[in-house]
């Protein structure tokens, strides 16, 4: 069975550095797949290839049967892939609500004349979608706050909300709980779980916290030095000798 996302024999090199080397993996419809691996193992690079930020040296990436290679990040977003960043990239000077509204951008009809004349029926429709997400992620108290003024944990939530606002079919989360307190991690885990249950979105996430990752993931893939060293259930992958070596060796 072909997955929602098929990555085939993917390689990426920066000059002499091989960030990814012949990685193949498939993300099945409505599963939650975790990518683990030590620092510099190519996890973020993989996400950057999928979302069109990096151009792989060779290999294939297909989403829902269509190749993503050669497409710009905004086209890939429109195809239904959303992501968050390892180091937050929020629109700092916008309100939390407006950050989410940018997530709605790709659903706008984009009528310039209507925008100039302040015809706002569409705007109101999209705002109600954002309000649903704001409620889901408990962002009500900050909806009108400047995103840059929010605490780190809230900013992480805003970025998740912005990605959800695009109504993706596949959501990529790059270290969603890094830097969060234990309590915040629990909350985040609940949301990621709900995203799958309630919104029926397929999730691919990178995580260093193996406990957190194995609790959420159906399956797990481990990378080391740009190579896939293990794949399987979280328990299998964590017991895999290569994985143990990669983590202990680090």
């Amino acid at each position, binding site marked *: 069975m072909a997955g929602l996302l098929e990555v085939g024999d993917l390689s990426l090199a920066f000059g002499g550095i091989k960030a990814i080397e012949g990685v193949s993996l498939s993300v099945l419809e409505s599963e939650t797949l975790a990518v683990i691996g030590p620092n510099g193992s190519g996890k973020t690079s993989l996400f950057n290839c999928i*979302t*069109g*930020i990096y151009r792989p040296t060779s290999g294939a990436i297909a989403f829902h049967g269509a190749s993503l290679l050669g497409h*710009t*990040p*905004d086209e*890939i*977003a*429109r195809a239904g892939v*959303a*992501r968050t*960043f390892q180091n937050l*990239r*929020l*629109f*700092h*000077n*916008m309100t939390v609500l*407006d950050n989410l*509204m*940018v*997530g*709605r*951008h*790709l659903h*706008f009809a*984009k009528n*310039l004349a209507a*925008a*100039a*004349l*302040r015809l*706002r029926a569409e*705007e*109101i429709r999209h*705002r*109600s979608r954002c*309000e649903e997400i704001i409620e889901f992620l408990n962002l009500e108290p900050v909806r009108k706050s400047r995103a840059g003024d929010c605490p780190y944990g809230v900013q992480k939530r805003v970025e998740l909300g*912005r*990605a959800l606002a*695009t109504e993706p079919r596949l959501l990529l989360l790059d270290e969603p709980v890094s830097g969060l307190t234990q309590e915040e991690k629990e909350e985040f885990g609940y949301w990621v779980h709900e995203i799958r249950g309630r919104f029926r979105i397929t999730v691919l996430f990178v995580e260093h916290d193996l406990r957190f990752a194995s609790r959420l993931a159906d399956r797990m893939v481990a990378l080391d030095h740009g190579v896939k060293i293990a794949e399987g259930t979280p328990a299998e992958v964590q017991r895999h000798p290569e994985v143990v070596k990669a983590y202990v060796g680090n």
Partner: protein
Amino acid sequence: MDLIESYREDLRFARRPIARVLLALLVAGLVALPWFAPDHLVFLATLVALYSIGVMGQNLLIGYTGQISFAQAAFLAIGAFTFGHLRIWGLPFPLALAGAGALAALVGVLVGFPSLRLKGPYLAIATLGFGVAVYQVFVNFEALSGGRTGLAIAKLKPMFGLSAAHTQYYVYLLLVTAFTLVTYNLVSSYVGRAFVAIRDADLAAEVNGVNLTRYKLLAFAVSSFYTGVHGALYAQVLGHIDPQIFNLLESLTLFVAVVVGGIASIEGSILGALFVIAVPKLLADYRELVPIIYGLGILLVLMFEPLGLYGGWLKTRLYFRNWPFR
């Protein structure tokens, strides 16, 4: 309150009653200005009105989209000379104005292309080069600039029994009002959000579906349209144009107005226009001080009040709103 109702409320222009009262007073004062103010003040107000249009345009590009450009004078010149030629060919004022804006917008798109590759200071230098090139073209091609004698531009015909100067003032007041409203609408729409998204985090904008090419070029097109219209309206006021008018200092003037008035603020743009009209006027006997004041203005803003004059006003307002508690 019903949710839909509260969105409507949020999206409304001038939401607070006090804002509406102040706005009404401001408009009434501006409409009545020619009755109580001497003619030279009306003339200054006319200049502020037309400069506000250009500054708002530049603010859309520099302040909202974060694309630093120094090609302002080139677009002023393109607007002014297009307007001049179209008027000489017999086109009525509104059409000539639209033509001036449209051609400037078109050239703006071309100038925008480097912005797809260049960022920050590199883009600033590229646009600066373009500005110098356009200046040279107008200086050297007499067919475009009207040569040594420049282009003479017919005055607006007086209307409604008003004097020529007052007619011009009202036409400009109407135009700046229209441009201001459209700007408010644009920046609060998906367009404005895309602009600010590009400025704050271009990569995140892209992965959220904002087409960088389209919106950067749109920002250049819209801002150049505004600046072209500014050039045309300036030509109309001067009655006579030659290429020397549109030199580098004119680019810097618009840039100063954006920064001193307030980055990414419409009210700030208008305050900035007021600043760059008032300073040379107040220093009429010490012209050489004007660039120094501009430079100081930018320095002070960058050091103490990054949001410019408008930011200062916001703080003052907050102070009085919370008074006596702080």
